[in-house]
């Protein structure tokens, strides 16, 4: 590849774009070894579970092409590939492989797609170590330290011979990457994958030359880097991702100082750029969830800067271009990495360059992508319904053959997304919302106390895009059959969401029985001891909200656990916070009767328990679909979407809206 031509082509384009003036640091080239990179933006490696038996699929190629296109000349990293035929290093069922030359054609397709879009291709080598062996009854690591997470496999200690083989496999995989056309080779050494297992005092208890003090624990990493260098030659940049802070204090992990030793050793071994990360999958601390403020982890990059001279990159809660531009200007990082934000909006860098910041659909850090990965499913995205469907023509928005008048009833995420797609297809779309605020359940969900306001971003984005697409909003308007009759729409979309219902039990009409939304919006007072009736997502948010106000909260749920519908990345933290505030949960339980100062619950095993309480907050929902039958009588095309069909989660609502929008 002629990097000079590539950089000058993009430079010319950047100069015409407002974003290059607004964010000059992001659109400056950088040269690493012989590779000249037109800008400072990098798509970080993302497992997607799109591939089969290690072979790259067309689905993955289309997914990566879309990200490469949006990068406007940046670095596009493909998912980490595993490198051994047994699959000990395979951590994800749909992970791509590079353990044989037979995988080169597939890897080349990805590299070619990236190059065709004018971006720089980066292949990541990833042996998943104690997160590996996804199709095996075991995984491997430096020592057989038992897993903290049940989902992970028992660890088998690697022999020295196995270590040497594994190092060679890194070199062979790197060589295959270069043959496939990649410009950069990256080594993953983070979150619990093999290199990090060797580096960490938590998982490396060896007494040979690969264990012991931090220098010895670095030996495996150093030998991998040297092997990869031998394989790729002196011109190809080698990147590595390394933990600056493991956040494993409770398990006896490395100190932050020891982590900096790993950085220095990596630099000395010949890496050309370090991606600064923090946390392990086994860590007890939040790293990428909404309770972590944007830019929070930059302090680790600052620390790294004091210890190494090679360029640094960083992802992890760094979503905003202005923040990344400043971090580069301040000399904290050199390259801005993005993973989840480019799942949510692959065109984030392009929109930044074009100065269209209001069009960026920001990731809401819901971690649906991760939750699906860990359940061996292909990734999807709550806010970007197209993820995984980039290769399917039927998922693309195309002009409608016949323009229709579409009435969307309800301004929650389902209604907004549906209205947007329908309007983008060219229909005349009227969206009716009975309140003076859009967002439906997201309005309440975003009242949570730990960064949940970030959730409302998707509603603001949908509203802006709807306005641009010409959707006509009718706020403070309750739709009746008479309105439908008068407006005569060709299509009605019922997206009226849910209603909160109080089951009829003795005492359920008492004045201290209130609805969750009333409490969250400040319309209902609550006493000191609060029973939250219903343990799904909305009940959890109400409980969190009340717990942070110092209330003693008891959640009553019929489910086997609270928050069965809440993302696993979040629910354990939420429950920890509720429990730390003195909160309790009764599973397999329901309220039998409500009295003035207590409720009687029927708990698991049929046991009745009196629970003292001053207020009962009801968080039980039913679909609100009264208009459906009337609409069907008045209109030949009626769709019911989102919670109005079945109360579910945000991503279900948005995906319903998108799919039905396409169908109209």
């Amino acid at each position, binding site marked *: 590849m002629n990097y000079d031509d590539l950089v000058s082509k993009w430079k010319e384009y950047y100069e015409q774009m407002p974003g290059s003036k607004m964010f000059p640091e992001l659109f400056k080239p950088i040269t690493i070894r012989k590779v000249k990179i037109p800008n400072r933006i990098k798509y970080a490696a993302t497992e997607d579970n799109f591939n089969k038996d290690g072979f790259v699929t067309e689905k993955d190629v289309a997914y990566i092409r879309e990200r490469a296109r949006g990068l406007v000349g940046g670095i596009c990293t493909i998912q980490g590939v595993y490198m051994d035929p047994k699959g000990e290093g395979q951590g994800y069922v749909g992970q791509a492989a590079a353990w044989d030359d037979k995988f080169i054609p597939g890897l080349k397709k990805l590299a070619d797609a990236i190059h065709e879009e004018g971006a720089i291709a980066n292949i990541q080598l990833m042996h998943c170590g104690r997160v590996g062996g996804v199709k095996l*009854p075991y995984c491997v690591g430096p020592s057989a330290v038992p897993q903290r997470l*049940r989902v992970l496999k028992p660890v088998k200690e690697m022999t020295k011979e196995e270590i040497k083989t594994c190092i060679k496999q890194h070199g062979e995989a790197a060589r295959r990457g270069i043959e496939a056309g990649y410009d950069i080779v990256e080594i993953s050494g983070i979150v619990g994958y093999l290199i990090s297992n060797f580096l960490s005092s938590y998982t490396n208890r060896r007494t040979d030359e690969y264990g012991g003090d931090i220098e010895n624990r670095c030996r495996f990493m150093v030998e991998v880097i040297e092997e990869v260098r031998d394989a790729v030659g002196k011109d190809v940049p080698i990147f590595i991702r390394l933990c600056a802070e493991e956040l494993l204090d409770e398990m006896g992990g490395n100190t932050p100082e020891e982590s900096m030793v790993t950085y220095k050793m990596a630099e000395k071994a010949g890496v050309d750029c370090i991606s600064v990360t923090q946390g392990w999958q086994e860590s007890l601390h939040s790293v990428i969830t909404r309770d972590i403020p944007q830019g929070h982890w930059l302090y680790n990059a600052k620390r790294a800067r004091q210890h190494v001279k090679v360029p640094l990159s960083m992802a992890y809660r760094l979503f905003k271009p202005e923040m990344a531009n400043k971090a580069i200007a301040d000399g904290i990082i050199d390259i801005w990495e993005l993973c989840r934000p480019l799942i949510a909006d692959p065109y984030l860098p392009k929109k930044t360059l074009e100065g269209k910041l209001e069009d960026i659909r920001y990731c809401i850090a819901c971690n649906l992508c991760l939750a699906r990965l860990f359940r061996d499913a292909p990734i999807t995205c709550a806010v970007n319904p197209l993820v995984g469907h980039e290769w399917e023509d039927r998922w693309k928005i195309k002009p409608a053959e016949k323009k229709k008048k579409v009435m969307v009833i309800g301004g929650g995420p389902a209604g907004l997304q549906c209205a947007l797609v329908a309007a983008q297809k060219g229909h005349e779309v009227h969206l009716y919302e009975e309140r003076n605020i859009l967002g439906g359940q997201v309005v309440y969900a975003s009242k949570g106390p730990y960064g949940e306001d970030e959730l409302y971003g998707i509603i603001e984005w949908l509203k802006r895009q709807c306005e641009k697409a010409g959707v006509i909003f009718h706020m403070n308007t309750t739709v009746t059959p008479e309105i439908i009759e008068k407006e005569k729409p060709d299509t009605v979309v019922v997206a009226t969401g849910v209603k909160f219902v109080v089951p009829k039990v003795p005492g359920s009409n008492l004045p201290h029985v209130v609805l969750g939304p009333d409490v969250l919006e400040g319309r209902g007072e609550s006493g000191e001891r609060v029973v939250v009736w219903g343990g799904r997502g909305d009940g959890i948010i109400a409980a969190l909200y009340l717990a942070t106000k110092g209330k003693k909260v008891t959640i009553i749920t019929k*489910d*086997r656990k609270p928050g069965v519908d809440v993302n696993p990345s979040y629910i354990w933290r939420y429950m920890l916070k509720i429990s730390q505030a003195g909160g*309790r949960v009764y599973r397999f339980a329901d309220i039998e009767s409500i009295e003035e100062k207590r409720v009687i619950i029927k708990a*698991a*095993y049929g046991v009745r*328990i*009196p629970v003292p309480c001053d207020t009962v907050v009801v968080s039980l929902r039913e679909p609100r679909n009264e208009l459906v039958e009337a609409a069907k009588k008045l209109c030949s095309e009626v769709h019911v979407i989102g919670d109005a069909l079945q109360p579910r989660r945000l991503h279900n609502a948005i995906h319903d809206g998108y799919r039905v929008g396409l169908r109209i």
Partner: protein
Amino acid sequence: MSFDPEEELRRLLARYDLLCGIVRATWYEWRQAALEFAKPGTNPLDLVKRAWEIVGHDTAQSYFMALRKNSPTFLEDLANLIVMSSRAMGEDAVVIKSDKPNEVFVQWNECPWPEFARRYKADMEEDVQGCDQWFQTVVDDVNKHFGTKVRLETLKAIPRGDPVCLRRLWIEEG
């Protein structure tokens, strides 16, 4: 002496819940040990079915005292006993009456066993067929004891991906 009745009950419930979890875990741990000592080629499913058959005989014996052959609700009483056993193990089960005489259904809305099967990497089919074996043994022993003709059929199973487990019990005519 003052005490918090909710707290006392809650603590008892929590301990009982933990105990039920230990019982389920122990089941799979014994299964693993038995398989390690079993003859080469032993099918885990055969081992599991045999174990549940032994459990079934024991369960049936505990039901004999609670059932009355001449009761007009004999079948429903048996179904209720099954529900009671299931609830005692942390399952959420109910008896559903049928429109037809001599027929009832037992529906399990929640069951913690598949979660443990998954955790211990046991085949889900073991979970279904293990339960079937247990109930079938109970029904067979009840029939032998009372001279009845109760029949059992599994219609849905959570471990097979159904939303509930559903079993039909009926008395064969003639």
